[in-house]
């Protein structure tokens, strides 16, 4: 029963194969098997959003997804947000607005906010707060985070759609990897 299942998926524009037990969450595989530790484990029960990834255009808590469900999916993690040319406008804005302290919640906030700004680059404060309600921060309060997202939205709105161009470029630091470990 603990036989492993072969899963073929795409993570940050790179095709990835891995073996997973049926009971393993996508979060476990991303962190422990694939070694992509940018995605964080917080509550592990769908409340905190630290493990947010984007699957086929929708943000989800990767602790609430089985790894075997990732077969054939297209996944974006925090590692795929920056490009070789530089940080994503959201990452830059989080730095400039000091929108983080311990940093555990930050990857989830950025992956979640990116999905909002790509849909609604003009999202206002109320919309941002609503969209990010599934992401908890226990350090900063939320004002700086919201300010950073508003700022990133302005940058992404400026003419050339630089933010989206960065994203499209982005396999980021993830190498092609085929992981078959027992």
């Amino acid at each position, binding site marked *: *029963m*603990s036989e492993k*299942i072969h899963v073929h998926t795409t993570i940050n524009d790179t095709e990835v194969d891995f073996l997973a*037990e*049926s*009971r*393993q*969450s996508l979060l476990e595989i991303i962190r422990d098997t694939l070694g992509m530790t940018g995605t964080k484990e917080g509550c*592990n*029960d*769908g*409340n905190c*959003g630290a493990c*947010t990834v984007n*699957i086929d255009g*929708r*943000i*989800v*808590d990767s*602790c*609430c*997804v*089985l790894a*075997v*469900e990732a077969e054939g999916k297209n996944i974006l993690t925090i590692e795929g947000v920056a490009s070789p040319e530089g940080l994503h406008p959201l990452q830059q804005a989080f730095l400039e607005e000091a929108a983080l302290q311990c940093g555990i919640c930050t990857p989830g906030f950025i992956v*979640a906010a990116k*999905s*909002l700004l790509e849909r609604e680059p003009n999202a206002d404060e109320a919309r941002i707060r*609503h*969209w*990010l*309600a*599934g*992401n908890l921060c226990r350090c900063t309060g939320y004002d700086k985070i919201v300010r950073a997202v508003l700022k990133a939205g302005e940058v992404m709105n400026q003419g050339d759609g630089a933010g989206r161009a960065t994203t499209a470029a982005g396999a980021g630091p993830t190498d092609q990897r085929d992981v078959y470990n027992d």
Partner: protein
Amino acid sequence: MQEFEYVAPANLEDAIRLMAEKGPRAKALAGGTDILIQLRGGRFQIDRLVDIKKIPELNELSFSEANGLTVGAAVECYRVYEDQTVQKLYPGLFDSASLIGGIQIQGRATVGGNLCNAAPSGDNIPSLIVQEAVAIVAGPNGRRNISVEDFCAGPGRNVLQEGELLVAIHIPTPKPNFGAHFLRFIPRNEMDIAIANSAVSVLLDDSKQHIVSARIAIGSVAPTPVFAREASALLTGKEANEASIEEAAEATKAAASPINDMRGTIDQRIHLVGVLTKRALRTAISRAREG
């Protein structure tokens, strides 16, 4: 998490067989936002998890004037509330589907799973009840239809028998001059479990001054979501005014049999059910008038 076998059948017949083979040791997986947490917490032991998301019929979200709305068991909340027909004709379901969890949960959680999970606080369930939703169920002995108000059997328990799966939820097309609304009370602004919730629907006459019929359903105030039958019936033929609303809201409180727990007290929940029902009725009536 415990070990189990994961299967993802491509058709309903296989899914039913795979469920039936394992009896109570098989569970269905849709969005997983409840069941994966329950498995991790050891709430029950299973041998097999049957992922229903690869079955085309269960992914159907469709509407026709004659047949109403069909929400397949694997249809996520976001698909429901982003659907323009739902926004227009099923306002109560729109309200509840867009309130559940946060955006991450809405990207995975299904309306069908919310129903099958049968939590007393399941936000979509009262909305389904007041829009006269019917659960279409298939199992080893064929298909049957169950009114949503009869679907939940207790906290976390539903009336599905071994091998049975929810296929879809079917909601009839509302008549003209129909309005519905769903409200809940939670301690936070978002992302919380209701201390009490209330869904209502009203059908007004052509003058839009009188109530032809109404349905009120409440949650988090009893072992299952409750259809407040008597309170609903009180509104039949009444003028759509504040006095009628007050009377029905007061009667709705009698349908609540809540417990004290960490989220709220009995008194608080009964009070809240009255307030929420009153407010939901006002909005449902004005929605019905706006058409």
